[in-house]
C-alpha cells in the first residue's frame, strides 16, 4: 500500500510519477462511469448480462496502463473496463454481453484476447502467446487476468507451470475480490495468500492493495519489467472487492453483509486517489471536470452504440465455423436462407405465430 484508504502516502515506498497517477485516475473515472453505464444498460434490457468491476477499477486500469503497445492482455468476462482502458472501443467490448456475437473486437488490433468466460482457461493461452513471442525474440509481455475463484482450477496450475518451465514472460494478475460469485475465499484456499501459489512453480509472487492505483502501477510495472528482462513469469495478487453483485442476475445479499460491503466502499480506489491528487495539487476542479466530461463522453458513446439496433447477420453463423464451410454447413445455410426468405415473404402470420 503506497496510499492509505484516505489517500495519504504511506512509508511503503516511492510513488509513481504524478502524471501516471493522473492518467490512472482519469482511467478509473472512465472505468467507473463505464461500469455504471453498462449496468444501466442491463436494467434497460440492452445488455443480456453485465459483470461489473465497480470497486476493482484500480486493477482494471493499472493492468492496461503498465503494458507497452506490443504487449498482450488476456481478460475475463469481468475485465471489460481493462479492455476499454487498453483502447478497445467500448461498444465492441460489450458485444459479448449484449448478445450480438461472442466477441466484438479484433484481438490483434490492441493485442487484447477475447473476454474469456470458462475460468482460468485463458491462462495457458497467455503462456503460449508469450512463448511464441519469445521464440521469435520479440520483447512482448503478456498480462493475464483471473479471479480468486479461478485459481482453484487445474488450468491455473498448468498455465503457471508451463510459463515457469518455459520462462515465458507472463504476468499473472489475480484480482482477489474475496468471492467467486457467492463462495468466499476460505472455500478456495487454505494458503496464507494466493501469491503464495507462486512458490510451487518457482514463480515470484507478490501481494498488493488492489484498491491503491499507485501501488498497483509500481508492483505491476516491476513485474512486467522483470518478465520482459527474461526473469520468467510473475504472479501478483491484488486485494480488492467488487462493490456490486456478481452480475445483475445475482443477489449478493444472500452471502455478504451490508457492513462488509460498506467497509469496502470506504476503501473506494477512486476516492483514495482523488484525495491524494487533490492534496498534492495535481488535480483541481477544472481538471476533474475535464476528466468527468471525458468519462461522460465514453458513457455516451457506449450508450449510443449499444442502443443502436444492429441486426446480426444470420449468415455469420455459418461463415466462421471453419475457414471454408463444410458441405453440411452449406446445406444448412441454404435451409436457413429459405426459411428466412419464406418468413420475409409471408404477408400472413407464420405457422408458428398462428399456433400461439
Amino acid at each position, binding site marked *: 500500500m503506497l496510499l492509505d484508504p484516505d489517500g495519504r502516502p504511506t512509508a511503503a515506498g516511492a510513488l509513481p510519477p504524478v502524471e501516471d497517477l493522473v492518467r490512472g485516475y482519469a482511467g478509473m473515472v472512465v472505468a467507473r462511469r463505464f461500469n455504471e453505464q453498462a449496468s444501466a444498460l442491463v436494467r434497460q434490457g440492452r445488455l443480456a448480462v453485465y459483470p461489473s468491476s465497480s470497486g476493482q477499477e484500480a486493477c482494471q486500469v493499472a493492468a492496461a496502463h503498465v503494458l507497452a503497445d506490443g504487449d498482450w492482455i488476456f481478460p475475463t468476462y469481468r475485465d471489460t473496463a481493462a479492455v476499454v482502458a487498453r483502447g478497445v472501443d467500448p461498444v465492441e467490448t460489450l458485444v459479448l454481453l449484449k448478445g450480438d456475437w461472442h466477441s466484438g473486437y479484433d484481438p490483434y488490433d490492441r493485442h487484447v484476447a477475447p473476454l474469456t468466460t470458462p475460468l482460468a482457461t485463458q491462462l495457458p493461452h497467455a503462456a503460449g502467446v508469450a512463448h511464441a513471442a519469445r521464440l521469435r525474440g520479440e520483447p512482448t509481455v503478456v498480462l493475464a487476468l483471473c479471479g480468486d475463484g479461478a485459481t482453484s482450477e487445474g488450468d491455473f496450475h498448468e498455465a503457471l507451470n508451463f510459463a515457469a518451465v518455459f520462462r515465458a514472460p507472463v504476468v499473472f494478475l489475480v484480482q482477489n475480490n474475496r468471492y467467486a460469485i*457467492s463462495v468466499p475465499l476460505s472455500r478456495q484456499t487454505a494458503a496464507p495468500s494466493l501469491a503464495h501459489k507462486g512458490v510451487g512453480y518457482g514463480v515470484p509472487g507478490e501481494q498488493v492493495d488492489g484498491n491503491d492505483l499507485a501501488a498497483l502501477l509500481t508492483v505491476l510495472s516491476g513485474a512486467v519489467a522483470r518478465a520482459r528482462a527474461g526473469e520468467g513469469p510473475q504472479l501478483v495478487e491484488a486485494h480488492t472487492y467488487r462493490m456490486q453483485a456478481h452480475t445483475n442476475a445475482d443477489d449478493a445479499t444472500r452471502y455478504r453483509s451490508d457492513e462488509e460491503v460498506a467497509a469496502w466502499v470506504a476503501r473506494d480506489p477512486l476516492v483514495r486517489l482523488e484525495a491524494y491528487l487533490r492534496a498534492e495539487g495535481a488535480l483541481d476542479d477544472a481538471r476533474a471536470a475535464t476528466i468527468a466530461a471525458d468519462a461522460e463522453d465514453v458513457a455516451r458513446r457506449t450508450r449510443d452504440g449499444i442502443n443502436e439496433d444492429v441486426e446480426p447477420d444470420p449468415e455469420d453463423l455459418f461463415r466462421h465455423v471453419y475457414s471454408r464451410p463444410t458441405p453440411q454447413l452449406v446445406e444448412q445455410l441454404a435451409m436457413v436462407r429459405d426459411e428466412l426468405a419464406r418468413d420475409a415473404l409471408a404477408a400472413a402470420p407464420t405457422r408458428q405465430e398462428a399456433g400461439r
Partner: protein
Amino acid sequence: MTATTAPTAATVAPETLSTAQAINRALRDALAEDPTVLVLGEDVGALGGVFRVTDGLTAEFGEDRCFDTPLAEAGIAGFAVGLAMNGMRPVIEMQFDAFAYPAFEQIVSHIAKMRNRTRGRVELPLVIRVPYAGGIGGVEHHCDSSEAYYAHTPGLHVVAPSTPADAYALLREAIASPDPVVFLEPKKLYWAKGEMDRGPVPGIGTAVVRRQGTDATLIAYGPSVPVALEAAEVAARDGRSLQVVDLRSLVPYDDAGVCAAVESTGRAVVVAEASGFAGFAAEVAARVGERCFHSLAAPVRRVTGLDIPYPPPKLEHLQLPSVDRILDAVDDLQWEDA
C-alpha cells in the same frame, strides 16, 4: 420398458411446481430420507445455486450435507468419486453444461468405468446434475447441449426430464440408483410449471407417449418436448395427427417403446436441440431406421441444432428446433397426398 402413456392426474387436486422447485424438492426429500446423500458444487450453499435449485438446503441440512466446493469441476467430480467409494451418495452440480468439460476425464475415465473396472465391487452411486441446453438468451458456454458426449460413454446413465413431475421422480430414482447418472436439467424449463403426479411415474429407461397421434411420430426429449407438443398442436389444426414420444432417458434407451410408437404411424421425426452431426438424434434416427425399416413410409428426418457453435443470444432462435422447422420436416415425409 415399454412406452406407456403418462399417468393422468389423480382425483386429488394435484400440486403445481416449477421444474426448479421440483428438483429442489427431490434433493430435499433425498437429503431427509438418506443421511448418506450429499449435495455439493459451486454456489450450491448460501446462494442456493445460480438457478436457486439448491435453495435452502444448507440452511435445513447443514454445511456437511450441502456445501460449496473450491471452483474446480474435475476436483468436484473426482472428490465425488471418493465420497461415493466411501459410503456416500453425492449429488454434484455443474454450474452450466459447458463448465462440466473440465470434469470430462473424471467422468469418462472414472465415473463411467469404476464399476466395470472392479467387476462391480466398487459402485459409484452419484448424480451429476447439469443445467443444460439453451433458449434462455445466455452467452457462449451457457447453452451447450452436451448429451451426446455422455450418451456415447458406456457406464453412464443419461436422463433428461421435460416436466416437473418427471424431474422430481427421475431425480429421486437417479439418487437411489447404484449407478452414476448424468441428470440433464433443461434450463429453459426451470421456470415452467407443471402438476406433480400423484401416482407412480414410469422409471428411468422408459419413454412415454405425451400425445397420441396417427400420422407421424415426433421423438423428443428434454427441452424439445414442449416444442414438439406445440408443433403437434398446430399440425392438428391443419388436420395432421402427430404422436409425440418423450424419451426421458437417453441411456438406457427405450427401443421397444420408440419402435412401437413409430410402427404405429410409419413416419418419424427426431427433434433435439443439440447440433445434429454425430449428435444423439443420429442414434435415434439410425436405430429407428435399423429396427423399423419395413414400417417406414419415408426416411427418418431429424430436426436438430445446426452444426455450429451455439449462437449468441440474438441469433439463438435460429439454432433451436422451432415449430416451423418441425412442421417443415413433417411436410417432407413423403405423404401420398402431397
